[in-house]
C-alpha cells in the first residue's frame, strides 16, 4: 500500500469528515492597466451579454432556493439586467476604460449612493457587489468567485473565509472547512466550531488542491489526508468512535470527579445561536457577543430592536444565567455610526469599553434595553464590559450598569493590567471573565489575526497561565468568581489546568461542552491543582501541555 499524502494544519473545530473538495475563489479585481476598449459600442454589447449571463445564473439559483433567498436572488438578477447600469457602464467605456474596469466603476457608483442612503438600500450593497464580482470575473474570462452553489456534501477549501461566508454555509452540505490562512481564534474558526462543522486552518498549499479531490479531515489533530485509502478512512472513523466512547455518559452540571462544580456555559453571538444552544445540556451562556446587532449597520440599532433580540436570547435560557458582553467594537471592527477614525494600532486603540466611554449614548441604550428585557423575562442576566484595564474604568462601568437596575455586573479580564490588578478591579464588580484569546494577544504582543504568530498565541504559554493565576488570586482575595470565555476553555486538558488555577466557569462553543464535561468527570480537584502547578513550572507551551498530560487520566488522550 502506498503511503497516503498527509498534510498538517491546525485543528480548530472537532470532528472528522471525508469528501470531495469544492474550492472557494477569492474575488478578482480588474487589472489596474486594463486596456481601453478600441470599440466602446462593441464593448457595451459585450458587457450587456455578460451581465445578462450573470442574471441568468442568479435566476437559475433562485429557482432552486427557498422563498427568502429566491426573492433576494430574483431582485439581484434584475440589478444585473438593469438598463440604467448598462448606460452607466457605457459612460465609463466612452471615457476610455476597459470593460471590467467600467463595470466595476459603474456598480461602485450605485454602491456609494445606496450606502449613503442607509437602511434597506445600504443592505443591498452586498447583492450589488455579488453582481460586480461575477461580472468582472466573467469579463476577465475567469470563474465566478465565492462559495459556488453546492449540490452534494463536500469539503470547502479556501484561502480564508469571511465570517459572513462561513455563516451562510449550509451545514447539511458542508462536511468540513479547510483554509490556507486564518488563525485558531479567527472568527471563522469560532463560527465553524459553533456550527459543529469540522475545520482545519493554516493548511499549507490548501488552495492548490484541485476541486473534486477527496480529502479526509480531522478537525482535532489538524491532519488532512489527500486521496485517502480505505484504511485511512477507517482509522479516522475509529478515532471518532474512540472519542465518542471517551465522551462517556456524563450529563448535567460540570464537576470534577470529587464533586467540585465548574459551570459549563455556551458562547453565542445571535438570537439564533441562543435558540440552538438553549436546547442543549449547558448551564447557561458565559459570553453573549452583542456585536452582530451593531456591525454592518448604517445606524445604531434602536432600543426596541435591541429589547426584542435580548428578550429572545433570555427566553431561550429560562432561569439559566446569560452573561452579556456590551458592545465590543473599534477600529478593527469599525461601526458606520461610531467611527472614531483610522488608528495605527486598532487592537491597542479606542475599542471595547474605551469606545463606550467616547459614545456613552450607545452604552446607555444597550444597558436600558438589557434591563427591559431582563425585567420582562425575569432572566438571570449578568452584564460585563470588554477591554477593561483599570479599576477606575471598572467603577465607571459598574455605576452605569447598576443605575439601569441590572443586578450583576462584571468585567472581561483580557488586558494584562486588569489580570495583575484583579484585586482592585474585582472589588468594583460581582465577577470576572478571562478572555484568553485577547489576553494571549496582549501578553505576548502578538496580533491574533496573524496566523503566522499562532505559536506565540498558544494559550498554554506559561506567561499567559501566570496571568490567569494572578486574576484567580484576585478573585480569591475578593471572594468574586472568575470564569474563562476564550477558546482555551474548550480544550479538555487546558480546562483542567484552568480549574486547578481557580476558574469556576468555562464558556465555549456549545459543541465543545461534552468533551470538557467528560474530562472534568475523570479528574479530581487535587489532580487539577497539581496540573496547574506543573504547567506553570514549565518553560514552554509544549512543556506545559506535556506536564499536564503526564498527570491526566489516560482516557483523555482520545479527547484531545
Amino acid at each position: 500500500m502506498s503511503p497516503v499524502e498527509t498534510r498538517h494544519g491546525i485543528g480548530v473545530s472537532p470532528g472528522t469528515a471525508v469528501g470531495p473538495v469544492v474550492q472557494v475563489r477569492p474575488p478578482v479585481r480588474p487589472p489596474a492597466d486594463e486596456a481601453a476598449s478600441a470599440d466602446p459600442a462593441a464593448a457595451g454589447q459585450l458587457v450587456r451579454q455578460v451581465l445578462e449571463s450573470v442574471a441568468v445564473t442568479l435566476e437559475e439559483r433562485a429557482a432552486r432556493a427557498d422563498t427568502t433567498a429566491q426573492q433576494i436572488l430574483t431582485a439581484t438578477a434584475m440589478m444585473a439586467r438593469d438598463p440604467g447600469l448598462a448606460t452607466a457602464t457605457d459612460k465609463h467605456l466612452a471615457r476610455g476604460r476597459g470593460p471590467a474596469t467600467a463595470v466595476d466603476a459603474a456598480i461602485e457608483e450605485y454602491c456609494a449612493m445606496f450606502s449613503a442612503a442607509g437602511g434597506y438600500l445600504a443592505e443591498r450593497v452586498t447583492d450589488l457587489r455579488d453582481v460586480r464580482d461575477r461580472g468582472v470575473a466573467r469579463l476577465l474570462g475567469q470563474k465566478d468567485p465565492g462559495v459556488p452553489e453546492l449540490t452534494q456534501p463536500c469539503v470547502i477549501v479556501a484561502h480564508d473565509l469571511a465570517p459572513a461566508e462561513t455563516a451562510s454555509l449550509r451545514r447539511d452540505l458542508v462536511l468540513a472547512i479547510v483554509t490556507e490562512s486564518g488563525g485558531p481564534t479567527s472568527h471563522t474558526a469560532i463560527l465553524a466550531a459553533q456550527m459543529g462543522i469540522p475545520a482545519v486552518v493554516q493548511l499549507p498549499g490548501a488552495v492548490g488542491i484541485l476541486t473534486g479531490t477527496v480529502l479526509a479531515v480531522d478537525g482535532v489533530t489538524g491532519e488532512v489526508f489527500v486521496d485517502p485509502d480505505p484504511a485511512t478512512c477507517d482509522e479516522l472513523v475509529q478515532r471518532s468512535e474512540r472519542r465518542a466512547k471517551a465522551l462517556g455518559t456524563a450529563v448535567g452540571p460540570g464537576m470534577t470527579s470529587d464533586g467540585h462544580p465548574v459551570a459549563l456555559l455556551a458562547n453565542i453571538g445571535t438570537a439564533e445561536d441562543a435558540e440552538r444552544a438553549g436546547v442543549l445540556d449547558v448551564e447557561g451562556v458565559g459570553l453573549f457577543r452583542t456585536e452582530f446587532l451593531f456591525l454592518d449597520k448604517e445606524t445604531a440599532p434602536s432600543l426596541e430592536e435591541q429589547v426584542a433580540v435580548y428578550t429572545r436570547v433570555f427566553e431561550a435560557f429560562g432561569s439559566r444565567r446569560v452573561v452579556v458582553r456590551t458592545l465590543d467594537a473599534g477600529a478593527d471592527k469599525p461601526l458606520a455610526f461610531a467611527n472614531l477614525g483610522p488608528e495605527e494600532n486598532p487592537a491597542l486603540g479606542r475599542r471595547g469599553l474605551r469606545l463606550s466611554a467616547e459614545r456613552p449614548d450607545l452604552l446607555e441604550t444597550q444597558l436600558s434595553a438589557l434591563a427591559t428585557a431582563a425585567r420582562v423575562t425575569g432572566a438571570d442576566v449578568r452584564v460585563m464590559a470588554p477591554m477593561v484595564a483599570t479599576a477606575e474604568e471598572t467603577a465607571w462601568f459598574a455605576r452605569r450598569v447598576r443605575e439601569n437596575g441590572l443586578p450583576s455586573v462584571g468585567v472581561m479580564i483580557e488586558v494584562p493590567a486588569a489580570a495583575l490588578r484583579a484585586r482592585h478591579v474585582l472589588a468594583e464588580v460581582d465577577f470576572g471573565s478571562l478572555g484568553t484569546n485577547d489576553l494571549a494577544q496582549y501578553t505576548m504582543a502578538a496580533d491574533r489575526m496573524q496566523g503566522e504568530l499562532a505559536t506565540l498565541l498558544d494559550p498554554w504559554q506559561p506567561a499567559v497561565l501566570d496571568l490567569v493565576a494572578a486574576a484567580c488570586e484576585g478573585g480569591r482575595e475578593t471572594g468574586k468568581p472568575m470564569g474563562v470565555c476564550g477558546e482555551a476553555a474548550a480544550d479538555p486538558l487546558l480546562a483542567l489546568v484552568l480549574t486547578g488555577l481557580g476558574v469556576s466557569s468555562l464558556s465555549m462553543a456549545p459543541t465543545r461542552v461534552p468533551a470538557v464535561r467528560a474530562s472534568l468527570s475523570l479528574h479530581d480537584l487535587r489532580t487539577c491543582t497539581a496540573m496547574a502547578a506543573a504547567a506553570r513550572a514549565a518553560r514552554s507551551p509544549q512543556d506545559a501541555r506535556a506536564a499536564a498530560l503526564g498527570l491526566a487520566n489516560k482516557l483523555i488522550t482520545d479527547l484531545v
Partner: protein
Amino acid sequence: MSQRTVIIASSVGLHARPAALFVQAATATGLPVEISRVGEEPVDARSILGVMALGAKCGEEVLLTADGDGADAALEELVALLSRDLDAEE
C-alpha cells in the same frame, strides 16, 4: 406624452418586492416609462436600481410618464398596480 399620478399603497414603499414587481410590469409594457417624485428628476421605470434609489414611500404621490402607442393603457395598468399593497400579497 401621457402622464398619471398615483399614491404608493405598498406599506414598505416602493422597495423590495413592490419595486421588483413594478419594474417587471414597466418593462413588460415595452414603452420608455419614467417615474418621478413630486418636483424631482424622473428615473427610468425599467431600472430596478433607479426605482429603488428613488425611495418613494408609502402614501407618497409619484408621477408616471410614457410615450408611444398604448401609453395611456399601459400607465393605467401601472397605476392600478401601485394602488395595491404589493408587499401584503402572495
